[in-house]
């Protein structure tokens, strides 16, 4: 398949956001994925979130690995730079890029094969470093692009299209991220745009690493009876545990929430995440409680979704590196090169 540009038609009635762009301006080239693929719905949610956040595409850097999921960054924000890394190694690209230029908004897209098998090591370490980026794991339980092998997130007992049954324990990215000290952990479903868009917005605004695990059925290889990542299974077993809403600093807190049922968490940039419908035993700021809650619900056959854990104040990777707050790209050479006289002084140690 070669590149397919999308015809650009601007309808006068299209709404414009604060930076003067319509939703269409956040699109990319035409998707070449299978019709009905969950990944395309996530692309649509990313476009919506970016538009609503008034992101200037120029200031966004899109990152991905290899897989059907990792192809999707060409399908959104066509006027943003993108980087398609080697399989499973997108986190290192993000880490190096973000350490160098923190002024960009980093949006990473990966798959369950890319993240949980070949790239598991890099995923773990990018979480530990708390690199400031959103990391969208488009989780379909299979390797789509290589035609349907089980991935490391396939559930025990789930059946592949050719009939094999998976017997190995799955890796749950949300639980994994919690144990590794992630500062933002969310789960959603590609078919639930209403839930996904605010989560993505909060993840983009979060200062630090935001893991968004999105169940995203593969219609070609993993949407049949017996698959736990099919549309049908997911719709029946997803449990919206936590309904999180996101408001920008300028919007202020909406009054419609009943006190008591809402927990508000303010992000460093002033935007606010509201947790609604929060069950009593759930506290999005308590890592151990969240972990226990997820395990318990899993035991009951549920897949809890929502913004599950949030620590807005943890130091991010650049804080740990104690790097200047500006982009290293813009530092003038004179500030980087100590010059001849300094060299002569330095060399006295070697005489």
């Amino acid at each position, binding site marked *: 398949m070669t*590149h397919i540009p999308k015809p650009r038609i601007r309808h006068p009635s299209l709404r414009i956001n604060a930076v003067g762009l319509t939703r269409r301006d956040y699109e990319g080239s035409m998707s070449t994925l299978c019709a009905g693929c969950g990944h395309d719905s996530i692309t649509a949610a990313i476009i919506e979130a970016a538009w609503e956040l008034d992101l200037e595409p120029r200031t966004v850097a899109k990152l991905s690995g290899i897989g059907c999921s990792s192809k999707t960054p060409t399908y959104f924000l066509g006027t943003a730079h993108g980087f*398609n*890394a080697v399989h499973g*190694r997108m986190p290192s690209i993000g*880490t*190096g890029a973000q350490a160098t230029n923190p002024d960009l908004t980093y949006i990473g897209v990966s798959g369950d094969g890319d993240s949980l098998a070949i790239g598991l090591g890099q995923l773990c370490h990018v979480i530990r470093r708390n690199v400031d980026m959103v990391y969208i794991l488009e989780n379909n339980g299979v390797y789509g692009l290589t035609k349907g092998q089980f991935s490391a997130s396939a559930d025990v007992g789930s059946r592949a299209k050719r009939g094999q049954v998976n017997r190995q324990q799955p890796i749950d990215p949300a639980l994994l991220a919690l144990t590794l000290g992630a500062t933002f952990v969310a789960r959603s479903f590609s078919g639930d745009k209403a839930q996904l868009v605010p989560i993505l917005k909060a993840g983009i605004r979060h200062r630090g690493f935001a893991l968004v695990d999105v169940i995203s059925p593969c219609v070609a290889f993993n949407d049949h009876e017996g698959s736990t990542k099919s549309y049908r299974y997911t719709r029946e077993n997803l449990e919206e545990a936590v309904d999180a809403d996101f408001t920008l600093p300028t919007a202020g807190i909406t009054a419609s929430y009943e006190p008591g049922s809402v927990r508000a968490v303010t992000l460093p940039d002033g935007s606010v995440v509201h947790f609604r419908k929060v069950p009593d035993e759930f506290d999005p700021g308590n890592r151990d409680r969240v972990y226990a809650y997820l395990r318990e619900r899993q035991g009951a056959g549920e897949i809890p979704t929502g913004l599950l854990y949030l620590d807005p104040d943890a130091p991010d990777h650049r804080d740990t590196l104690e790097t*200047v707050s500006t982009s290293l790209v813009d530092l003038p050479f004179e500030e980087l090169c100590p010059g*001849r006289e300094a*060299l002569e002084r330095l060399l006295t140690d070697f005489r």
Partner: protein
Amino acid sequence: MSGLNDFTVKIATVNGTGSASANGLLMKAIFRMGVPVSGKNLFPSNIQGLPTWYEIRVSGAGHTARRAEFDLVVAMNPATYARDVAEVRSGGWVLHDSSWPLSPDLRRDDVTFLGVPLARLCNEHFEGARVRILLKNIAYSGVLAALLQLEMDVVEGLLEETYGRKKALLDSNFEAVRLGYDYAKEHFDCPLPTRLERLDATAGHILIDGNTAAALGCVYAGATVAAWYPITPSTSLVDAFQAFCTKLRKDPGSGRNRVAVIQAEDELAAVGMVVGASWVGGRAFTATSGPGISLMSEFIGLAYYAEIPAVIFDVQRTGPSTGMPTRTQQGDLMTAAYASHGDTKHILLFPADPGECFAMAVQAFDLSEHYQTPVFVLSDLDIGMNDWVVPALGWDDAYRPDRGKVLDAEALERMERYHRYLDVDGDGIPPRTLPGVHPKGAYFARGSGHDRYGRYTEDADAYTDVMERLARKIDGSWERLPEPEVLMMPGAEVGLVTLGGCRAAVLEARERLVEKGLPVNVLRVRGFPFGPQVGEFMEAHGRTFVVEQNRDHQLLSLLALETGFPRERLVSVGSYGGMPLSARDVLEGMASGGVGGEGDVSSQAASERELRAPIAAALGRRARGEP
């Protein structure tokens, strides 16, 4: 052969007992006496307890290559006594600790044994087991000072520089060095005929290792990102970079760093971080050794194909696999030249010493950004970790980095459309853009097939078009690479082609051959791809020896592959067992491989006989078939 300002001392100790500071003290003291000196640290891959050796070569004539003929051995490790005693040249000396009797079967009649009760002296004068062990090293330095006529003022001055602020430490070091010195003066006929005399041959020079020099080069080049994973012998490069940055890269206002040094989880991530940093416009590098290069290969191919700069220091050690981590080799030439699957070729720089590590570090960044491609600096353990005497590093304040063709917002604004891989001016290097600058500059960097417009493609012609341009770009890069070092003399029909740290041994071997009447020319390649000069040099010589340190003649193969010069007309010479190359290795290789040996090229212009005699003479032997 040996004598005044011309001798080699080998010091045998146990790893982890603090001998490094004593060895460093001796090196620097000799250097400060104005006498050229080189040190080879032969250390084990271990933290404590295994044997370790330090070889100090003093050469008033300025020869820096390893010389494996030892005039004096300091035998401080009972576990290696037999071997160490056996290595002293006939007529030489063994300095040993006579606190215990030396086994009679270790004795040799043709060497002089100098016993000093170092352990007993230290036990009598100092408290604490650790302190006694450490100061024993300083005490043997004192003995050496007396034997070799090392100026005590210089030695004590150095101790003061090191311990000046710690009075107690300084006093005990003074005492230890005096203990050894006085004992030797009293009991032996000092100095030995093999001794030092003040010279003025190190003025304007420094004593530095290649990793430190390369790190300084990175600072001066304006590198802003280093990502790495620890591996001997490259670790000290990033350690040094970090240390320099702590001094030189603090923002005065905030106290924060104008640099990011990231310890990655492995080399795959390290090089990924470098590629990511370079993609957004940083000057980024990594430092590693062979095993790391193997892991980095996939990303290196991506950087080549997506045209993203990356500077990679490969401080080579012996392979294959883990190999001998603390021994030197030039075994990664092929791997680096064509790293990664598919058709790739990379720019390589070959520093010969720490001075070139500094200069080539800076060049590597410029070349990498100019050609938008990975650049390797192929150093090795010997250059990287040993102290070398080199001319003081110089810097021109007029230097400005070559960032290559990078379009800014204004340029992009003026353009109708921008296409990432379109060779607009015919030099094979399309301009690049950085994220965040201008929406028109946006493109998708990828390792998958792309056309000249930067679009995904599976079309044969569109793919081939880009691949052909890439080949042109890299093949043409020799024009900007450091030129070969060429030494010519009239009448020479023998040529030596070499690279990197072999330089010192090659030049010394050449000097000896010339003395014996054999004119020899030398060409040292300093970069890859090779320029036309290299092929011309080989063509111009009846006999060309290729001097390198690996088993499979990798430089020879690269020369044959890339210049089309017939492989059969090249003779490989060198050693690859992990030791730095010596002039003797070169001469012996020429004697066996080049003349009447396996690689006989007697059909060539210089006759066997003409060659054989001077090579044998340079080795101090008679040639085969000579009376």
